[in-house]
């Protein structure tokens, strides 16, 4: 006989494995046997070595942390719908872990004596439990653990449809062949290779490929003294060459290289050695196509000659990023690598654009990247925020010079857009006359912001003061930094205002830890991760690090690490902030990759429980750092 509460229990359980495999009648009967347990925060459900309970548990609300005794490290967090405490179901042994309420929690205790018959009868239920128990993961159906469960590492080429397609894509090869003839002197060969920055050269007989000389040949045959450097190409080339038709897929190319144990393939019109050589394919090209190596990508960026090529390399960067996140590589490292690559792309774009300009820049200039890219936190394709800083010129030349740099700025920003950096909606780009100044102009602008810290000025400073030099003279930027710190020291009020700016962001969570979602507009009912979580923690880092007059560190996590070093008494909080900023960045990146956007707005109902918990955990740190700032910079005294 069911009652209203058991219906409620059943209604919850039916959404989660293994209960979703039960039929309604079984579920109704089981639900009736359930005991609902309320656990206060930090109260223990069962402890290590405790005798097994007559129940196992399902989390209805809240979260349970599983820990090993004596270590504070949480092994697992069980969230809504998760099952734990299964040990007694399978073996009459004491618990191996301690289960503690991570927060106020409501549990459904399912009696083992009523459940076991169901598990034995229903194979799907039984399998779920055994797998869940054995793999030590709570939910073996989750994608994340799918691979581990069967003892194979997650094979992305098998699961990921996009990689699969990539494998079958025709491979990109270099068509501008670097060649020589049999009689070319080895020294000339080496010089040619160096000039073209390639690792191999094709030895041709007319149009037909005769042999190939690679870095390895030069190293092993010439540098060792085996063959004199005055010899001819014929003496050291590998011949005959292994040729393939030009319509080769990435997978085929890989196979071919593995089969013959070579690193270069020569592509000919019809795939035989008796046809015209059309291209050369190196292992590097294959790696690039697979997009799994930052060094390869970096080299590709440096070699790229137009923005379209850089765009496809950026796709490789995204694949790399995804791979890193799947492998759980520390986000600090990931963001370093990715921002290096982003920086390199930007740099390359600037170089390409400079080449295309009819005249050389009249004076030295510096390309500053601002905001997230300046902080080295731009993992996804977010907006481009940048500025140009050029050397002081005589007054009469100023406008002319500015016109030049504005044109350069517009071109670069256009190219960056082609590569995949969206235009900044607020137009904070070097193409905007107010973001393209000479050094003394920039000094005036920044000192104006510092002396008149209105809301607008504070916002502009908070974007601008994270600048980082991507291209050009670092000395110019350093001089600007000195000027900024000088002014900031003279007007300490500025820091207070900057701090109050950091407090302006709306709170991430409501009274009972519910997420606060946007009330209206396009993103109604979405959680604004950037505004509510990332910005407060980034802003706080900025004001704190500026108050220590440190400009060399831009990355938020690193800023907090430095602060922890500078202020040992707040060490713990700062380290927590460093961690939280990394966690949030990772979160945003994951979300962004998942939905292929900037990751800023999050649909809460699409988050899994673990993600929600993780997100919420950072909120506490945010609140703490905000109150530290509030007190330290006496924000309250400020008339807002």
């Amino acid at each position, binding site marked *: 006989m069911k*009652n209203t509460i058991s219906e*409620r229990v059943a*209604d919850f359980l039916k959404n989660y494995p293994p209960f979703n495999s039960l039929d309604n009648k079984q579920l109704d009967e089981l639900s009736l046997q359930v005991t609902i*347990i309320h656990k206060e925060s930090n109260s223990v459900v069962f402890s290590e070595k405790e005798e097994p309970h007559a129940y196992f548990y399902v989390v209805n609300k809240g979260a349970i942390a599983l820990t090993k005794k004596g270590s504070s490290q949480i092994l697992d967090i069980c969230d809504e719908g998760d099952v734990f405490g299964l040990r007694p179901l399978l073996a009459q042994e004491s618990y191996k872990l301690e289960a503690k309420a991570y927060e106020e929690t409501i549990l459904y205790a399912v009696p083992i004596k009523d459940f076991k018959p169901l598990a034995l009868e229903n194979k799907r239920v039984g399998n779920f439990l055994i797998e869940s128990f054995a793999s030590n993961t709570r939910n073996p159906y989750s994608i994340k653990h799918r691979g581990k469960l069967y003892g194979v590492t997650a094979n992305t080429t098998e699961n990921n449809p996009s990689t699969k397609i990539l494998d079958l894509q025709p491979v990109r090869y270099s068509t501008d062949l670097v060649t020589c003839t049999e009689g070319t002197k080895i020294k000339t060969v080496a010089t040619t290779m160096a000039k073209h920055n390639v690792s191999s050269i094709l030895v041709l007989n007319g149009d037909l490929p005769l042999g190939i000389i690679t870095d390895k040949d030069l190293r092993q045959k010439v540098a060792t003294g085996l063959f004199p450097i005055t010899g001819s190409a014929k003496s050291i080339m590998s011949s005959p060459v292994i040729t393939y038709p030009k319509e080769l897929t990435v997978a085929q190319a890989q196979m071919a290289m593995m089969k013959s144990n070579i690193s270069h393939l020569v592509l000919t019109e019809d795939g035989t050695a008796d046809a015209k050589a059309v291209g050369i394919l190196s292992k590097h090209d294959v790696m690039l196509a697979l997009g799994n190596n930052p060094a390869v990508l970096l080299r590709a960026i440096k070699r790229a000659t137009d923005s379209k090529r850089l765009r496809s390399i950026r796709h490789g960067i995204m694949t790399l990023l995804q791979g890193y996140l799947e492998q759980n590589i520390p986000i600090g490292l990931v963001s370093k690598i990715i921002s290096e690559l982003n920086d390199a792309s930007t740099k390359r774009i600037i170089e390409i654009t400079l080449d295309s300009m009819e005249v050389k820049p009249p004076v030295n200039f510096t390309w500053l990247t601002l905001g997230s890219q300046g902080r080295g936190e731009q993992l996804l394709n977010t907006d481009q925020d940048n500025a140009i800083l050029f050397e002081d010129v005589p007054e009469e030349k100023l406008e002319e010079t500015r016109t030049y740099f504005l044109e350069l700025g517009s071109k670069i920003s256009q190219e960056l857009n082609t590569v995949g950096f969206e235009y900044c909606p607020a137009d904070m780009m070097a193409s905007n006359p107010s973001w393209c100044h000479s050094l003394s102009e920039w000094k005036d602008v920044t000192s104006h912001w510092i002396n008149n810290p209105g809301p607008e000025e504070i916002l502009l400073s908070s974007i601008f003061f994270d600048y980082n030099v991507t291209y050009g003279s670092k000395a110019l930027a350093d001089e600007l930094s000195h000027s900024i710190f000088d002014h900031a020291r003279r007007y300490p009020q500025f820091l207070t205002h900057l701090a109050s700016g950091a407090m302006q962001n709306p709170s991430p969570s409501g009274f009972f830890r519910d997420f606060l979602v946007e009330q209206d507009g396009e993103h109604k009912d979405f959680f604004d991760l950037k505004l509510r979580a990332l910005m407060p923690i980034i802003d706080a880092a900025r004001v704190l690090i500026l108050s220590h007059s440190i400009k060399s560190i831009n990355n938020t996590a690193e800023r907090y690490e430095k602060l922890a070093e500078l202020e040992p008494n707040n060490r713990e909080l700062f380290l927590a902030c460093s961690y939280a900023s990394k966690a949030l960045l990772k979160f945003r990146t994951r979300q962004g990759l998942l939905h292929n956007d900037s990751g800023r707005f999050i649909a809460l109902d699409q988050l899994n429980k673990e993600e929600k918990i993780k997100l919420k955990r950072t909120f506490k740190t945010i609140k703490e750092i905000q109150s530290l700032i509030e007190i330290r910079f006496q924000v309250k005294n400020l008339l807002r």
Partner: protein
Amino acid sequence: MWPFPKKKQLEFPDFWWAYEEHFKHPLPELIKDNTFIVLDTETTGFNLTKDRILCIGALKLKDNNIVVKDSFEVYIEQEHYDVGSAEIHGILKKSKRNRTSELEALKQFLVYIENQVLVGHHVMFDVNMVNAALKRNGLPKLKNENLDTESLYKRTLLISTVVQKKDRYTLDDLAQKFSISRKDRHTALGDAFITAIAFLRTVEKLKPKKIKDLIRKQGPLRFGL
């Protein structure tokens, strides 16, 4: 002396005496040893003399545990019927639920609650409705201690001149505050369940150890506390 049986005693059925018997034992001192009966009634209206109880739902709460099958839900046969309130609780005069007579329902209820503390949202309304029903059946009033979740909840709120406290907090307000699903709202047992969770969360905030303290906390704040 001639053993005259007390006349009054004869007027009450056995279940009442069994009920009274429980009150010979004092309540356990500590909250965790106490069983709380969280109850809610659905009625035909708010008039104590005119209106009738349609349904009583109750559950037992002990040391933070609710045993699902050990809950109480009884639907009562009706003479008086008010179309208006049926829209709220959805209990129609001739619904398919098994009904019991008012007396039988009261009997079952008394057997269920024993001498335990009754907890409800605006508990006095439910208690008075039950008392009115008891009176109709020639029985005395309930003897249990009561706890009102609204009064307790108010005590958890910060005393501030800035934030004006509301005068009344409905069960919906509490459910929202405590993120309790409002499914089954306006069924007696469903409301009792929401009340139970709200009660647990409130108690965690107040953190009293002893039952006496908890009962006292319902009152308005005194100086020195």
